[in-house]
């Protein structure tokens, strides 16, 4: 069996102290393998966003271990964590987080600019990412001029541009109407499967969760149900 891309063991995380102490995660374990899509499902307050932040190295757990391709994330230096987030992870957020007065191309290029790539290469790669989302004709437009679906496609292009191994999507279709949401979902799942990217989706949308290979249900900071791996996925991984 291959090494999991993400391997979390009994993650604890709490906020506040004393009376106002809130235990967001109370010992969550999960793993995600290369090429699979994993839905983290739960109501608001179940700790699913906190879990995603910890998996994406945006936050550190109070206790527990997180291994990324076998490397203990707790032992990484800050610069290594930053490099890992920049090169291995892609992010898709519900609220898009596009810089409004920058062009679509500039928005999509941002991870590559942060990585310090040369101008020519980053434009080439950003245009390639936009082409795969059929947004290359909008490259010069301002991000604010796009429709909701186009915005989320631009966000997906931005998540893909650094050729990550994991994409974290937090309610990726939460801000879209259902028809547009379906289209964006199709694109996201298609590209992820095509490129063998691990997809971690945080959602309370059951339909979206159902499209993932596997689901982890959280309630009050604990995993209450986790699907076994499907036979089909086993076949892919084998």
């Amino acid at each position, binding site marked *: 069996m291959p090494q999991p891309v993400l391997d979390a063991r009994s993650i604890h995380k709490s906020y506040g102290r004393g009376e106002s102490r809130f235990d967001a995660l109370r010992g969550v374990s999960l793993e995600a393998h290369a090429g699979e899509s994993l839905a983290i499902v739960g109501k608001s307050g179940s700790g699913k966003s906190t879990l995603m*932040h910890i998996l*994406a190295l*945006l*936050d550190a757990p109070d206790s527990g271990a997180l291994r990324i391709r076998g490397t203990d994330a707790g032992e990484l230096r*800050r*610069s290594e964590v*930053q*490099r*890992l*987030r*920049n*090169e291995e992870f892609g*992010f898709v*957020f519900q*609220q898009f*987080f596009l*810089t409004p*007065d*920058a062009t679509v191309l500039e928005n999509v290029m*941002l*991870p590559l*600019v*942060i*990585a*310090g790539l040369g101008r020519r290469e980053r434009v080439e790669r950003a245009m390639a990412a936009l082409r795969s989302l059929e947004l290359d004709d909008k490259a010069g437009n301002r991000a604010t001029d796009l429709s909701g679906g186009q915005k989320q496609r631009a966000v997906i292009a931005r998540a893909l541009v650094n050729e990550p191994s994991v994409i974290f999507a937090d309610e990726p279709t939460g801000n879209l109407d259902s028809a547009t949401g379906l289209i964006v979902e199709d694109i996201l799942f298609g590209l992820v499967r095509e490129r063998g990217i691990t997809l971690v989706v945080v959602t309370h949308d059951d339909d979206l969760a159902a499209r993932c290979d596997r689901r982890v249900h959280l309630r009050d900071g604990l995993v209450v149900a986790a699907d076994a791996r499907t036979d089909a996925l086993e076949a892919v991984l084998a």
Partner: protein
Amino acid sequence: MRAGDVIGSAIRNTFRSKLRTTLTVIAIVIGAFTLTVTSAIGAGVSRYIDDQLGMVGAPNALVVTAAADDGSAGDGPREYDPERSLAGGVNGSPIDIAGMTQADFDAIAGVAGVERVQPISMLAVDYIEAAGSDRFEIAVDPASEAMRFDLAAGSHVADGAERELLLPLPYVEALGFADAADAVGEQVVLGATDAVGTQHEVTAVVSGVAQESLLEPGAESNQALTDALVDVSLTGRTGAAAPAYYAAVAYAAPDVSDEQLQAIKDELVRVGFQGQTVGDQIGMFRAVIDGIVNVLNAFAIIALIAAGFGIVNTLLMSVKERTREIGLMKAMGMGSGRVFGLFTSEAVVIGLLGSAIGAGLAILAGTLVSGALADTLFADLPGLQIMRFELVPVATVMLVVMGIAFLAGTLPARSAARQHPIDALRYE
């Protein structure tokens, strides 16, 4: 993120909120403008004074006069001393200034380091005239090496049998000469009155014409002319009258050091005289002007500090507005150092913009004003360009402004760099 990208992004972000940037920049422009102008005035005046010092030679020559305060304490009126006073004045005129006697010259010559002493006599000249011109009043001093005025034409008076006179520029036109060069070599007549009231005429040849300057040059006579004028004033005088001297020039060794010169001055004070080089005399102008320029600079710096708080305010607003963007960039692996660099660069860009515009306006306005003043208010002081813009001071001003902007930017930049990506992304 590459340094070039940080700067490029800082420039773009600066122009995102144009109105806000403009207002902040205006505040800096005012400060930078003022600082550039004041430093230019300082440079202009310093240069003029240096030029003046350069034209007057003999740094080893001290003009020695009786000490203003003859060793007595306090600033009250000085007691009458018949020994010190030029009793009855010269030529019967009721002037009363401290005179010098041979005993004084001996005392000055006795000061260690003084090689020789040249007495400066009072030359009473009633008028000057050239062929066919009106008569004009004129003050004539014996030429000394202590003062070497800049020449408009001709040469300094030479020691020889011929009586020579160095003429100040304003007399050229008055005496009917076409220009300074025209006056050189011409004969002028000086009228002087003797002790019994008879007027005598002494002729002299104009050796050169002195340029106008800060030191207001008078006419200078060579030794032959001096002697002739002294002879006239002594004519008819009864008793053991001697020519009146009001000062002396003490010469130290030509290669005298500043320390040795100071020692001579101290010694002169001790024996009851005061000695000043021309540099000392001009240095007093400089001290006053430096003081004024420094006060103006201080005001400009205060204006810039106020403008610095404008930068803090602008960038704090910008950080607040861009909280999500900062969070996103940090989530995507941008380090805190780069975020800090991004915002401080923005501050520096604002500083650069403000200082460049301010300095540019100052150079433009200053050059125009300076040119206009040179022809009007300062027409009597040729060579005085009141504002002088030089590369190094202007660049220094710009660097100072950018430095202040950078310091102002560190505060908002620190708050941006410290933001946690999750908090920033949650921010509504």
